[in-house]
C-alpha cells in the first residue's frame, strides 16, 4: 500500500480494529449475497464480526454454518455458480480440508472470494503464523493476494470481488495469524457509496439457471478438459493488468494504491528484501535502519502471488546485486516457496542478482527488525547457496 499525498480522496471513518474485523468490514461493504463460514482459530473473529453486523441489520446476506469447511466450499461454489456474490473465510486446516473443492471451484470458474488467516498446518499442532497453508494451494487455480495490515485486508477484500468477477476466477486473500489477524490498528472504513461505485452488483454471465438452459459440472472428453486449463490460463493472464487497473482506481477513490508488486526505496538499492505478508512491515523498518547506517537497502513486496508478477519482479531486481528472500513457510525437501518462485522467474534472463533464500519465521518464530538488519550485513557479500538457509528466529 502506498499513500498518495496530494489526492483529495474522501476519507471514511478511521476506526481502531483488528485485521480480522477489518476483513469483516470489507466483506460487509462488498455486499455478498451468500456467506457460508465455519469457525476455526484464528479466523473466528471474522465470523463473529460478520454475525454481529448481520444481527445489527448492517450486513444483509444469507449466512450459513455448514458442518465442515469442505461443505463450506461446496455451498460457496453452487451459490456462486447460480449467480450470487459469495464470501467465506477460513484458516489452515480448514483451507486444506477444502483442497479438493478449491480445484473444483476454480475449474468451474466460480467467482468466490475467500479470506484465509495464515496458520501452521498440523502436525504437530500449532496456531502460529506461517504461510504454508495457502502457498501449498498455489496450483489450484485461485488468484492469491497477501495482505500486510488490517487496512490492506479491508481494501483487498473489496478489490478481490471486482477482480474475481472480471476474470471469472476465485480469489483468495491471506494475512498472517495474530500479527495481522489480531493486531489492532487504525483502519479507514470507506463509505458504502464509495464501495458501491467501485464494485457494481454481480451479474453472472454464466450461471446455473434452467431458464437459460445451462448446467455446470458435466464430465468432458480429454480435449475439453485440456481446453478448460487453457481458458483458465487466459484468465490468469489477465489478472495482473486488471488488478493494476482496479488498484489504481481504488487509489483514486481512497488514496491507497495496491499494485501487484510494491517497491520501497529500491531505485538505487544494492540489496533488497523480497517477501509477502506481515514480514514486509518488519522489512520496511529494517530498510530504513540500513539506509541510516549507510547501506542502500530496499524492499520488494508481493501483494499478488498467483499469478506471480514475474515481469515486474525481473524489472524490480534489474541491476540489484543482492536479494534476500524472506520465506515464512517451508516446502519440505525444496525450500521457501517464494524463493523457488523468484528463482524460476529470473532463470534464463540476464539478471545477475545473487538470490539468497532465507527461512525466516517458519512456524511463527519471531523475526525482529534487528535480525533483518544483521542478515543484510551478513549476506551482502556471500555467495548464494542453491537451497534454503534456516534462520533461527527469536524464540528458537
Amino acid at each position: 500500500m502506498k499513500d498518495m499525498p496530494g489526492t483529495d480522496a474522501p476519507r471514511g471513518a478511521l476506526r481502531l480494529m483488528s485485521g480480522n474485523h477489518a476483513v469483516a468490514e470489507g466483506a460487509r461493504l462488498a455486499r455478498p449475497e451468500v456467506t457460508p463460514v465455519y469457525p476455526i482459530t484464528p479466523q473466528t473473529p471474522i465470523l463473529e464480526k460478520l454475525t454481529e453486523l448481520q444481527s445489527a441489520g448492517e450486513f444483509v446476506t444469507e449466512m450459513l454454518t455448514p458442518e465442515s469447511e469442505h461443505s463450506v466450499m461446496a455451498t460457496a461454489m453452487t451459490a456462486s455458480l447460480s449467480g450470487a456474490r459469495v464470501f467465506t473465510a477460513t484458516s489452515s486446516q480448514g483451507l486444506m480440508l477444502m483442497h479438493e473443492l478449491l480445484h473444483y471451484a476454480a475449474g468451474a470458474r466460480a467467482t468466490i472470494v475467500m479470506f484465509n488467516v495464515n496458520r501452521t498446518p498440523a502436525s504437530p499442532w500449532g496456531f502460529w503464523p506461517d504461510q504454508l497453508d495457502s502457498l501449498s494451494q498455489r496450483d489450484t487455480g485461485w488468484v492469491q493476494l497477501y495482505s500486510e495490515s488490517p487496512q490492506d485486508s479491508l481494501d483487498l477484500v473489496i478489490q478481490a470481488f471486482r477482480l474475481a468477477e472480471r476474470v471469472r476466477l476465485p480469489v483468495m486473500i491471506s494475512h498472517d495469524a495474530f500479527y495481522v489477524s489480531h493486531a489492532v490498528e487504525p483502519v479507514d472504513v470507506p463509505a458504502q457509496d464509495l464501495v458501491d461505485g467501485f464494485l457494481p452488483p454481480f451479474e453472472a454471465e454464466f450461471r446455473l439457471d434452467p431458464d437459460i438452459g445451462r448446467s455446470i459440472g458435466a464430465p468432458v472428453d480429454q480435449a475439453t478438459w485440456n481446453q478448460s486449463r487453457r481458458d483458465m490460463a487466459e484468465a490468469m493472464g489477465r489478472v495482473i493488468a486488471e488488478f493494476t487497473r482496479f488498484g489504481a482506481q481504488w487509489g483514486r477513490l481512497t488514496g491507497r494504491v495496491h499494485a501487484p508488486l510494491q517497491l520501497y526505496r529500491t531505485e538505487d538499492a544494492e540489496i533488497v528484501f523480497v517477501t509477502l505478508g506481515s514480514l514486509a512491515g518488519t522489512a520496511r523498518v529494517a530498510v530504513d535502519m540500513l539506509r541510516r547506517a549507510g547501506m542502500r537497502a530496499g524492499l520488494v513486496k508481493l501483494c499478488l502471488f498467483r499469478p506471480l508478477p514475474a515481469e515486474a519482479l525481473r524489472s524490480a531486481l534489474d541491476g540489484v546485486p543482492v536479494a534476500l528472500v524472506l520465506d515464512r513457510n517451508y516446502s519440505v525437501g525444496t525450500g521457501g516457496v517464494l524463493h523457488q518462485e523468484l528463482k524460476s522467474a529470473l532463470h534464463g534472463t540476464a539478471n545477475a542478482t545473487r538470490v539468497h533464500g532465507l527461512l525466516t519465521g517458519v512456524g511463527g518464530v519471531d523475526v525482529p527488525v534487528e535480525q533483518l538488519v544483521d542478515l543484510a550485513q551478513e549476506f551482502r557479500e556471500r555467495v548464494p547457496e542453491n537451497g534454503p538457509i534456516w534462520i533461527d528466529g527469536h524464540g528458537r
Partner: protein
Amino acid sequence: MNANAFKAKDYKSDVTPIWCPGCGDYHVLMSITKAMADLNRDPKDMAVISGIGCSSRIPAYTNCYGFHGVHGRSLALASGLKVSRPDLTVLVMSGDGDGYSIGGNHFLHACRRNIDMTYIVMDNRVYGMTKGQPSPTTEPDWDSALSPGGTGLSPFQPLVIALASGANFVAREFSGDIKNTTKTIVEAVNHPGFSFVEILSPCVTFRPDERAWKGAVHRASVDETDDPARAARRILTDDGLNTGILYRGKRAPYQAHVKDEAGDAGILDARFKV
C-alpha cells in the same frame, strides 16, 4: 476391585487441563480414569484417540498412548489403530462439534462397521473452543450473539442415529454423575463391537443455562434392552436428559484380518466349529 494393580491416578498424565473452571469435561476425565482402573488394564495397553475441540484435549491428560488427530476424524484414526493393533483397548473421545458436525459421516460408518472400540462424546451443545457458535445438538431457539434468534435447525439426535446405524452399545450419561458414568464406560469397553456413550457435559462458559442439567437429569425409568425395536420406542419418548444404558446389541464385531490368522487352519477351524 481392591485387588486391582492400577489406580485412577495411574492413568492421569502430569499435564494440567486448561478447560474453563466448571467445565463438565473435568468430570469426564475423572470417570474415564476411574473406569480404566476398574478395567485394570495397563495404561500402555490402552489408547485414547481424539479429534479437535475442548473434549479432544483428553489424550494429553491421560497416561495412555494417544493421538490428538485432525478435526472430525477421530473414528477413522481409531479404526486404523484398532485393526492394526486389536490387542489395544481403544477409547475415542470427541465432542458434539467434532463428532456430529465435521465428523458426522464417520459416526454413521463407524457404527455400521462395528469395530471393537468405545466412542465417548462429550456433548455440551455448543462449539466451546471457538467461543460459542451453535453446534449440531444446539436447541433451534437458543438465542446468542453468534446465533441471533436461534438457528431454527432441527438438532442432531445422536442416540437415534447410533442405534439406526448399527452401534452395538448405546448409552447416555451426565458428566456430574461420576459413579454411573464410570460404570457405563466399563460396560461399554467390555461389550464387544462399537460402543457409543454420549455424555452430557455442561459448558458453563458459553452455555451457563446448562448448570441446570445437574437437577434435571434423571435415570431412565426403563431397563436396557437388546431389542433394537424396543430401544427405538424408548428413544421416541426421550426427553434428552434421561441417563443409563439404552441398548446392548448382539452383533458380531468387525474382525480384522490379523497376521496370526492368515493361513492358520487351526484358528479358522475353531471359529467355524459347529
